[in-house]
């Protein structure tokens, strides 16, 4: 029985994800093993269909692998029930999307506040936490605007702020700059680097951009659901 190691943030061991397609199995992830330590900044790269997003979703517990062992902070995720997994996830993981995925009906303030509501944090405490975050990202003036009133870069900033509000240990980003122009993209990447270096947030990002991948401490190249190479910078 494989075991996780204490210094690891997460450990994937012999993970597979496939769809039964008649007699054949269509593999999205194929017997992949990966350890990520606390404080790392990992960039996952690879061509379309190589399994990048699926891998990220498995790490983020949004998707479950068909086979394999998944440990997160010493917890055997593959054995946990939905409820426990959700609790674990709520506490430790933040998600940033390419399409920002803000809730259109909510203001900037409320979007950032929502994860705290789901964690049953009291109103006064929520207020303080959100105010801090708005201040830190320089979007205090935008707090009462709705997502549709913001530029793409501003929306992604809100998206990151929302992901960070519950102080996650692990930040997952699926092509966070994919919809942004290069200047906005750079700003977000700078922010990620700062979060990683100064706040010690572990980051895993999926990216197409060689340049953005360079912000990280390790680049993993995927091909056909397997790790083709892993380069520590």
């Amino acid at each position, binding site marked *: 029985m494989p075991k996780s190691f204490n210094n690891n943030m997460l450990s994937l061991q012999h993970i597979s994800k496939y769809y039964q397609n008649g007699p054949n199995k269509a593999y999205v992830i194929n017997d992949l093993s990966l350890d990520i330590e606390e404080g790392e900044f990992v960039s996952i790269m690879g061509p379309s269909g190589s399994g990048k997003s699926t891998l990220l979703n498995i790490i983020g517990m949004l998707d479950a692998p068909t086979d394999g062992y998944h440990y997160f902070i010493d917890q055997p995720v593959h054995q946990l029930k939905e409820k426990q997994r*959700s609790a674990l996830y709520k506490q430790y993981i933040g998600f940033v999307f390419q399409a920002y*995925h803000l809730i*259109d*009906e909510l203001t900037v303030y409320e979007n950032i506040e929502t994860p705290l509501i*789901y964690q049953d944090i009291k109103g006064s405490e929520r207020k303080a936490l959100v105010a801090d975050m708005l201040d830190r990202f320089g979007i205090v003036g935008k707090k009462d605007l709705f997502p549709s009133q913001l530029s793409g870069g501003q929306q992604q900033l809100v998206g990151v702020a929302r992901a960070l509000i*519950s102080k996650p240990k692990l930040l997952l980003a699926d092509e966070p700059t994919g919809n942004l122009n290069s200047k906005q993209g750079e700003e977000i990447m700078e922010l990620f680097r700062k979060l990683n270096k100064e706040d010690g947030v572990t980051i895993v990002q999926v990216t197409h951009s060689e340049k953005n991948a360079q912000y990280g401490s390790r680049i993993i190249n995927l091909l056909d659901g397997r790790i083709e190479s892993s380069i520590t910078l």
Partner: protein
Amino acid sequence: MLKNYFKTAWRSIMRQKVFTMINVTGLAIGISAALVIYMIAVYDFSFDSFHPKRDKIYHVVTNFTFSGVPYKNGGVTSPLGGVIKNEIAGITEAAPFYIANDDTKITVPDGTATPLNLKKQDKVVYADARYFNIFQYKWLAGEAKTALSTPYKVVLTQKQAELYFPRLTPAQVIGRKVIYNDTVNTVVTGVVENLPGNTDFVFHDFISFSSMGVALSADQQKYNQRWDNTTSASQLFVVLDDKATVANIEAQLEKLQKKYDPNNGKDFNGTQDFKLQPLKDIHFNSEYATFNYRTANLTTLYGLLAIAAFLLVLGCINFINLTTAQAVNRAKEIGIRKTIGGNRKQIIVQFLSETFLITVFAVLVSIALVPLILKFFTGFIPEDITVGMLKETSIIIFLILLSVIVCLLSGFYPAMVLSGYKPVSVLKNQTHAGTGKTRNAWLRKSLTVTQFVIAQFFIMATILVSKQISYTLNKDLGFKQDAVLFVNTPWRENNADKKQVFVNKLKSFPQIENISIGSTPPSSAGYNTTSVKYIDGKKEIKTDLQLKNGDENYINVYKIKLLAGRNITKSDTTQMMINETYLHTLGFKKPEQAIGKFIEHGDTKDMVIGVVNDFYSASLHSPIKPLAIVPAWKYNNYVVHVALKPKTEGGGEWKKAIAQIQAAWKEVYPEYDIDYGFVDESIAKFYESEQRMSKLLAWSTGLSVFISCLGLLGLAIYTTGQRTKEIGIRKVLGSSVRQIVSLLSKELVLLVILAFVIVTPLAWWAMHKWIENFAEHTAISWWVFALGGLAMLLTAIITLSFQTVKAAMANPVKSLRSE
């Protein structure tokens, strides 16, 4: 957290104004129907619920059978009231009272020449302390024990005392005089407060029971001492002790009756039994009647509740349909909420709060609608039901419960569907794929079909009920109904000479064609039946025979045809004309054969002198029965039947004739107000409950069709929205507007047709059940169903066209560019 939910709910409601409006309207219709009907139920069930001994109070009533036909009477034979308490174990109190007839004349002398004079007064009773022991009133002056202990005393309710003596306090009213029917001179000895709350005990003048000896005619008094005479005027209420059972008391009553009236039943070929009617049954049982004239009908109440339930279900279905149809639009939001930490329970609560908000809206709209509904349905809804009832705790609790139920009913399924979305597939835009969507579509379709089944059922029922009403009103009843007036002469002044004077006056008026004196018109609500026998040599034929009294003009006024023999003449006394049904019952084939035969009833034998055609002697609910017309002068008849000449253009003659009749009346009967009516109008009154039902059905139909069409429109908006791109491509490829409209409407129209197939047998079955109430009824024609289905289909297509035509006309460049 809840505040946050409501805030989000509010915003998404506002973003979807059209859908919200459809949802609120649909739910509000159902809720307001449920609310008003609940108010009616609360009102009706509140009757006489405040009497201290209400569970132990029983009304003693009489069930008869006459030759096998049951007949119920709310009264008892008068002597029973005097002996019941002493002779029957288990009765702690017994209160007999006697209701004075409903045209009592009341005079309140005030020393002037023109005292207060009230005619045609009702709710006057002869009662005493025993009544006030059972039904406890608050005494404002006088006391229950002594107030009615001797003759010529009267107790008034507060309101009545204020009417008779406007400026006096209850204490000052004591000792004042009130005169009933010019002969009963009473002194007021007590004033009681009107009963607090809804009650059927609405009497307001209580004359001491012992005054009856003077007040009633010698004949009536004689009858009132007999054990074989029952009148609904003679009432009896009892209180049982804790151990007594209804069955036991009824058994004792049976023995008691045998003791005092050993021949009971034999004299009229039937049975007579005393029964105990619980107090709480009085308001709902029209068979024994109440003292307030209006009884509630439990069947009607349940029917109304069913309608309310149907309308509510329709509203909820709309909600479920529209919400799940829109679910895809909300899917992204749900995916996001789940990825940022929301669990399923939290998301369900969020959607339920959204539903709750919409429900609360709908409830508010419903409350605002209540005054309008009450106003619109005056006549159907009892007058005492007012907007003020909305403040009652029971109504408020009902509304809260209803909101929760409606909210769960319409919100639970959509919440389950929405919260079940997997965030990964949502965020990858995969919600359209997979089986989830097709399953929803299947559910939506069944719900839509359900809606149209309900709506079409209402349409078909409405068509059939109107068809039956028009059938009954246009059916040839076997006599002339139009242009015939009947005038009831005062029975109190049943003086043959005066009647003749009145008739002679009428005869001189040019507009009057013919006049007859007799009993009721050929068709009447009540009828007079006697049992007769005919001996045809070998066997005896025993039947019930309905009797109509008429003079020599009766059949001429009503254009009843004489088939054989002769009409009644002035010299006839023991002769009768029989109808065809009786003719056939007697076994004769030809009318001539019956002439000269003798029919025995009681001690007398009547000779058949004529045979007339069959006519309906009651509403079409009952078939034609054996009937005879006997000479009017044998009995006390006080109805004058007047045939008017046909109206000419302009039609002022009838008005003139009526004015002349009224003038003649004033000369002959100056003391009385004229009481007359048209025969055809009195016949239409037989079908009042059907007319009311028809009105109610028409409304239910309108509303259910309206709600269903709202839902249909919502679905159309959704599907056309989903297919914008497809429509654009088709148009670019050369499709015409008509082709696109038919493409878009096809699926929904098919659902309406499927609903038609399902509802037709259901409706057919229900119609058969209903129409069995009529002895004579219209056919359940195929076109009733066809018309109903077609009406629904047309309405659906028109509704759909609002949306489909718009979508089909849209410029394809626009819809494709955005993709």
